[in-house]
């Protein structure tokens, strides 16, 4: 199949975008043909989102031109982009959780009768029709927050189609989906292209690119480094294009030598903030010197489980034992004092105090101990020395330890947290999404550190939504679905397909 005989519906010519101190896009060219799926590949921070926000009118390019269906356009706002038939499904859904599907779909493009009154009945009808036409199966009257993420994503697609979009931009659409849900999405995408919609599919997952794309474009450090066809690419070649060097997709690690059980969880039940049961009787153990990976799509109780194990959320039933102590009713401080290190899921919300200097952030888990505190008075000198040592040892890139943590990049923030957590004796490490949204260099570094801890005899509980991360670090894997553990597998028996089915709640 040749692309030259198809119409170019969207073309970006020489797009550059400069932010203060950063060049996010540099002279990028991109062409999308009618009815094709163009995969835009690049690692975190490569400038994919910036480019898409430019195409959607959220940013204005510093330089360059955008052509849509042969017409040179100025996109001042999303309104302009929508008017030109561009629809975007953002990575973080732009849906109002307390409103219905139909309300979300019509928002900003309401059909009114008299005096601004919305014609809800017609809105519901139109949403039904669109849902039916593209096989999306969405109830227009359902409230968004009651819907699973996969369905919410379809609402986003309907939103774009309702606005007569024929160019769809999907920003990391599979990040929140199980492999099976992702396959369903790919089918929907193909159905859409059959009916004349053109799609830009942004991702950093190589397998998906090869599975669904008609064309592949790769972005690295803000520049377009090349384009290729799926038939001419392999995972390895794409990875090299993406990162600019040979990447080791596998983490080097020797065989584990598990010792005694450090963490034992027995029949744990936990509620979420809305008081609904989200962890429903979970039992497992983590032994010294092994990594237990918890796989699962986000929102299946992993977060609440981690919060319970770190003392932030009460168990409603069951118990857990850390290093021989029943820690079920322990406070976060008591659990920390059992030599538990914790890398929280949300580093900016839970891991760091952004307005504090780096040095104060390095003692958050031990500020009350000598030499940092006499019990009453703090020892600034000791804190500074500690910080300087950690920054050096863990390669946190910063001009000084007195600048605010907010000035660090994502990867360096995460390294700072890891440095802090490992600067105390550790018996148990609880790591939640430890590499989410950071650069490849930092990911490799943090993976090595986790394995290093394991080899020193630390018990590691790794919770991650990235299947690749789970598979490359874990010695054993448990899969969580709907608040329960579906299965426990030794790494040797775990395949992507098997895990994917389990993550979707099927016993395979």
């Amino acid at each position, binding site marked *: 199949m040749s692309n030259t005989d198809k119409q170019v519906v969207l073309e970006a010519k020489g797009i550059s975008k400069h932010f203060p101190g950063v060049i996010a896009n540099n002279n990028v060219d991109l062409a999308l043909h009618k009815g094709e799926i163009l995969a835009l590949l690049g690692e975190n921070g490569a400038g994919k989102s910036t480019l898409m926000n430019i195409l959607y009118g959220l940013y204005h390019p510093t330089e360059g031109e955008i052509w849509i269906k042969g017409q040179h356009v100025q996109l001042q706002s999303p309104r302009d982009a929508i008017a030109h038939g561009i629809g975007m499904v953002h990575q973080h859904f732009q849906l109002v959780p307390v409103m219905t599907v139909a309300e979300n779909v019509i928002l900003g493009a309401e059909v009114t009768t008299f005096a601004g009154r919305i014609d809800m009945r017609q809105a519901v009808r139109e949403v039904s029709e669109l849902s039916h036409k593209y096989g999306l199966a969405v109830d227009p009257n359902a409230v968004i927050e009651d819907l699973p993420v996969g369905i919410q994503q379809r609402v986003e697609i309907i939103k774009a189609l309702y606005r007569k979009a024929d160019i769809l931009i999907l920003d990391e659409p599979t990040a929140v989906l199980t492999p099976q849900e992702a396959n369903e999405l790919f089918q929907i995408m193909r159905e859409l292209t059959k009916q004349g919609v053109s799609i830009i599919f942004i991702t950093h997952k190589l397998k998906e690119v090869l599975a669904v794309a008609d064309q592949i474009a790769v972005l690295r450090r803000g520049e377009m480094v090349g384009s290729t066809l799926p038939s001419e690419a392999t995972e390895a070649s794409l990875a090299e294009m993406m990162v600019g060097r040979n990447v080791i997709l596998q983490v080097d690690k020797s065989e584990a030598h598990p010792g005694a059980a450090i963490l034992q969880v027995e029949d744990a039940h936990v509620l979420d903030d809305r008081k609904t049961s989200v962890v429903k009787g979970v039992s497992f153990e983590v032994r010294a010197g092994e990594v237990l990976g918890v796989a699962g799509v986000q929102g299946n109780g992993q977060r609440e489980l981690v919060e319970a194990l*770190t*003392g*932030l959320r009460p168990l409603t039933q069951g118990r857990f034992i850390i290093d021989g102590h029943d820690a079920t009713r322990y*406070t*976060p*401080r008591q*659990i*920390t004092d059992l030599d538990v290190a*914790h890398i*929280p899921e949300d580093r900016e*919300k*839970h*891991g*760091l*105090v*952004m*307005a*504090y*200097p780096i040095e*104060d952030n390095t003692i*958050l*888990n031990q*500020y*009350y101990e000598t030499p940092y*505190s006499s*019990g*009453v*008075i*703090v020892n600034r000198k000791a804190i500074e020395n500690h910080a300087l040592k950690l920054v050096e040892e863990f390669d946190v890139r910063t001009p000084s330890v*007195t600048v*605010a943590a*907010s*000035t660090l990049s994502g990867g360096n923030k995460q390294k700072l947290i890891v440095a802090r957590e490992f600067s105390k004796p550790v018996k148990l490490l609880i790591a939640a999404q430890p590499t989410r949204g950071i650069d490849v260099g930092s990911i490799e570094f943090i993976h090595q550190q986790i394995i290093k801890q394991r080899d020193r005899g630390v018990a590691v509980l790794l919770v991650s939504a990235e299947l690749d991360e789970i598979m490359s670090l874990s010695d054993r894997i448990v899969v969580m679905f709907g608040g329960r553990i579906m299965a426990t597998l030794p790494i040797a028996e775990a395949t992507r397909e098997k895990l994917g089915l389990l993550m979707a709640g099927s016993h395979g």
Partner: protein
Amino acid sequence: MAMQATEQEVRGTFGERLAGFWRAASVPLMAILLAALIGAIILIISGANPIDAYAALFRGSFSNARAIGRTLEKATPLILAGLAVAFAFKGGLFNIGGQGQLLIGAIVAAALGFGLNGLPFIIHMPIALLGGALAGAFYASIAGALKAFTGAHEVITTIMLNFVAINITDFLSNGPWKDTGIVARTPAILETAAIPKWDSIPLGFFIAAAVAIIIWYLLFRTTLGFEIRTVGLNPNAAKYAGIRVARITILTMAISGLLAGMGGSIETLGVVGRFQPGFNIGLGFDGITIALLARTHPLGVIPAAILLGAMQAGSSQMQFDAKVSFEIIDVIQALILFFVSAEMIVRWILRIRGEGDGGVRLSSGWGQG
């Protein structure tokens, strides 16, 4: 964000310190200037001569020893009211209830001042002073506990408690603790409970200034201070770090109330000599202006309070000499507050760069759900 102070102290060479000081002080100084300017415009509109008015204001506050004494006397409760707001702010709380805590502190100090007989000065005065302070602490901790356990936003609860405090003190000074005679007020405090003056300089001022230094030390040099600031800047991270946020919230509020209560005590024991309703209306709001003018730094509170104290001390002179209603200082104060919190405007005028993001955030909903 309006008023994050630099969470980290300025270190380094003298030059760096000076530059740091300028960065911190430029916004407040500019805010004062702009407020005075707009105040002058309002004065002109209302038919007065602003230069005469400001000159009289200055004469009334700094021209001689008695004027300075009066300024310091006015500044004393202002320091404590400002500290109360600034301290709570460091812990992420907005204590608008300084007024109520001050009233409760003042009436308890008065009661201890007239009610305890036969104690020597060295015991009686401190008991009355601390008694009032502790009463303020207790009163504020109600709002702290409501915040910690139910999430009720302290801004509304403390304001409501202000009205409750007015009613309580009104009842006490009109009922059980009423002086003989028809005026609703408590009896005068005994000589042994009074905070003396040294010539025209009130001793209470030095107590207040010393408290400011103690509060600075507590916040920046102690482990408790670290915990309070951590909770203020990021309660989620504080929870992760094992800090008991509810406990710190109540304690922060209690210490804040202690400071406000102490302000009421010193005013009662050092200036007024008894409690009467209508006592120092508006001091709680003054505390907000002072705290923000000081960029919530405990030591910055002292000069900020002296400035507002001088305005209050000189206002009657201004009314007398320039025939300007003394309430113009309330307007100027409000303008200072506006400019100091709208620091983007001031920054733009001065062309200084921002201090980065972060800082305490108060607008977090009303704490329901």
